[in-house]
């Protein structure tokens, strides 16, 4: 098995943000929801910065740039809203789970050679954005009580869905000829 395939499988075997996989769906408070949202955005921003520097594929670099722009814009909104509402984002098990997964993903990415890096990064982004979309639908939006915070999450959802669609297009392109 080629090294790139090993890395790809390692990515896919990582503990994804499988919030549904917890023993019971946690009932997050609004400060905890805010913390999860900001954490999820920061994770993608950090990995995208790595991709911008490491990738030699124009489409992957453009995708990474969009991730930085979009997730930063959402975080600016989230922080402004939390400030306006007087809400201090609160760390919680879901945020910690995201960070653990991100640390493991970063370890894999750092070891990947250039060709394997692009596929590993995009495969990770497909899985990550699908998991974030599922989390929005099944946990974050339903559990949020504050109407403004809920509206922000609802407004963000199409962007996450578009990121997922974009990542899948690139995933298909990277897979051609392999």
């Amino acid at each position: 098995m080629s090294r790139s395939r090993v890395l790809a499988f390692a990515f896919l075997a990582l503990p994804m943000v499988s919030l549904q996989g917890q023993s019971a769906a946690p009932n997050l408070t609004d400060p905890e929801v805010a913390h999860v949202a900001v954490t999820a955005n920061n994770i993608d921003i950090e990995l995208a910065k790595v991709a911008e520097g490491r990738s030699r594929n124009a489409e992957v670099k453009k995708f990474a740039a969009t991730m930085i722009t979009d997730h930063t814009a959402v975080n600016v909104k989230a922080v402004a809203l939390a400030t306006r509402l007087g809400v201090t984002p609160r760390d919680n098990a879901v945020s910690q789970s995201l960070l653990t997964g991100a640390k493991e993903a970063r370890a894999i990415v750092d070891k990947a050679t250039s060709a394997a890096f692009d596929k590993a990064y995009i495969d990770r982004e497909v899985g990550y954005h699908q998991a974030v979309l599922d989390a929005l639908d099944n946990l974050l939006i339903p559990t949020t009580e504050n109407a403004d915070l809920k509206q922000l999450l609802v407004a963000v959802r199409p962007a996450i869905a578009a990121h997922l669609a974009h990542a899948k297009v690139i995933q298909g392109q990277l897979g051609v000829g392999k």
Partner: protein
Amino acid sequence: MNWPAGARYLARAALVLALPTMIAMGYRVSAGDDGVPRRVVIEIKGLVFTPERAVVQVGDTVVWINRDLVPHTATASSRSGWEVGPISEGEEGFRVVAVAGSFRYFCRFHPTMTGVLVVR
């Protein structure tokens, strides 16, 4: 054909009197069916261009309004290379359409967002 001097005078006078009215009515030589160019709005919301297919007239001004949290562009899919934007949240970008035809475009930041301008 040689017009009588009186006729030439009357023609010039008519034009001088009519022109301010025409300008006040927004008349443009290049306008469409009713002679008045329009401001046609395409809303960007939920990472979708609405309407996805916009039918406009040569001379119209097409305005993209971004109601999303994230920035967008309207970028020609063809090699004509026109681009409107980047357009930030709450802001507008516009283009006066000068050539008839059907023009596909997309958002350069989110390439799965696509639209069509049909210019008549």
